[in-house]
């Protein structure tokens, strides 16, 4: 990363990609998050694990600014996501790509138009370049160019995930926020997803925050793992560290034989 050395030290470039401080989330009486602190440095790939309903999706929504935390702050690239300045907010939002748990493809647009949509919104690229880019993104997620003409309703569940990933990658984001990216993919595709993200990360140096229950994905990608339980982050560190933590949730999560196999594969 030659370019980074020439930059002044105090620039926001050096700020952590995500900085969460003292975050609380309440829905009425229920408390989902209780005083959470979390930072993600540039180039890091953080895996977020936690039981169903533990508030992982909610945390991601707060990170990308879709939901305002009840208390505490979330900063992306050194500036608050909930800033009052619309121009600043727009600039921050262009720098990350989000993959929603249910895909959230625009149902009225074809697959190709879904991927082209954020690119067209930039109003900087010509239509030929956009079409080529769409084909590149489709190829990245192992879809045929002919799939571009399909409508979201005509896709299988796993294809929806892959198109959503292609769309999240469209703007060449510096941060990828992924909500269960491999749920619904066959093991083969999960493995190629891991390879794809790893390759892209090496080439482009982006950061990743992902929620996943899939231990192979976690072992293959995450440089750091955070476990969400009891409304807090109960463990944060490398996969091996978190797996050896003595907490009821992590003990159960990493107890199975498959988990042990994945951990051993990761250690190798």
């Amino acid at each position, binding site marked *: *990363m*030659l*370019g*980074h050395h*020439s*930059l002044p030290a105090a620039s926001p*470039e050096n700020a952590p990609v995500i900085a969460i401080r003292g975050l609380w989330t309440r829905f009425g009486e229920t408390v989902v998050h209780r005083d959470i602190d979390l930072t993600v440095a540039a180039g890091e790939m953080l895996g977020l694990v936690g039981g169903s309903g533990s508030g992982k999706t909610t945390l991601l929504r707060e990170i990308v600014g879709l939901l305002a935390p009840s208390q505490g702050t979330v900063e992306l690239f050194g500036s608050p996501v909930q800033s009052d300045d619309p121009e600043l907010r727009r600039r921050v939002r262009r*720098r990350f790509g989000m993959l929603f748990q249910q895909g959230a493809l*625009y*149902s*009225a647009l074809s697959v190709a138009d879904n991927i082209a949509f954020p690119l067209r919104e*930039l109003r*900087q*690229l010509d239509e*030929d*370049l956009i079409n*080529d*880019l769409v*084909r*590149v*993104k*489709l*190829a*990245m997620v192992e879809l045929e*160019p002919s799939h571009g003409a399909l*409508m*979201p*309703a005509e896709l299988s569940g796993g294809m929806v995930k892959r198109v959503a990933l292609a769309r999240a990658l469209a*703007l*060449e984001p*510096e941060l990828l926020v992924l909500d269960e990216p491999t749920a619904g993919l066959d093991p083969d595709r999960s493995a190629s997803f891991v390879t794809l993200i790893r*390759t892209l990360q*090496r*080439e*482009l*140096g982006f950061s990743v925050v992902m929620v996943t229950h899939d231990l192979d994905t976690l072992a293959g990608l995450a440089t750091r793992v955070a476990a969400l339980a009891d409304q807090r982050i109960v463990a944060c560190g490398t996969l091996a560290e978190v797996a050896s933590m003595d907490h009821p949730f992590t003990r159960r999560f990493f107890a199975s034989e498959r988990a042990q196999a994945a951990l051993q594969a990761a250690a190798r």
Partner: protein
Amino acid sequence: MSPATLDDEVQGGLVQARLAGDWTLATLGPQLSVLDARLRQLNARSAHWDLRAVTRLDSVGALLLWRAWGERWPDETAISETHRRVLVRAAGVTLPVRAVRAPYDPATPLLLVGRGTLTLLEHSLGVIALIGQIVLDLIYLIGHPRDIPWREFSATLYKSGAQALPVVALVGFLIGVVLSYLSSLQLKTFGADVFIVNLLGISVIRELGPVLVAVLVAGRSGSAMTAQIGVMRVTEEIDALATMGISSSLRLVLPKVLALSLATPLLVLWCSAAGMLGGMVSAHLEMGLSYAYFIDTLPKVVPVANIFIGLGKGVAFGVLVGLVACYFGLRVRPNTESLSAGTTSSVVTSITAVIIVDAVFAVLTRSQGIP
């Protein structure tokens, strides 16, 4: 992020192009066309390319280069292995042939007319099929009275009938007032004031009441039904019903159509009554016609057949609006665009159909109910 730079120099008769910095969407975006032109120019001078100082190369940068190079590798390229892979990936998918726009076809207007006719035919067949399904459901229900969807029926009756009472009364009353006021101005010039009762009675009870109610029901309940069934299609709830062995026509369409066929004539009666009241008040204020005279004369000059014609129209319009709404709801394809188009078609079609059926009624009942 470091900006993308491009330097060129001539060394010993050879053009050297040196790229440096981040060649990514974020840095390229604003200067894309300028860089594109320079790259193409350099390629035309068969430059030697040096990409070793490039820090980051994403697919936008790669595609830009690849297209400037005429979609083939230049003779001399110095590039890191990582960036070569990015370029190879971008290169693998560009197609040299660009799509061309289809030329204008002079037969297009003809095709449009033909397609429109076929669509109309298709819709008619679809509605007939839906009617057939409802008849089959009714026959089934006679044998299995336990399966009658009472809850859905009464819910629709409440939402489309009871909750529509205030707005229908308001519209009916105001139409009565306006009609009575405007007619009284004309009638006064002929000294024919007393005929206001005949005029109002026939026009509101026989014609305006049913049509107004049908338009209101189509806008209020028809659109809601199409949207509801349409969303259930989008979210696969209809499929979920089917897997539980529940007929969507029996559970969704039939109770809606039946409830509307009962609610609409009642609303027609309500609307006509409000219209008469409005007309009566207005006639009293404008021409000094006494309430007692109005009430006394109404049954004499407006034969009771008109009320039955109004009620009959109400039943027909209710069934029509319900059928059209459900038909378009069931046709919604699972996307938002289709949902909004379906709702629009539903309202437009049912109002048009109501007016057409009203004209048919006028022809068929031309000898009835006229004093």
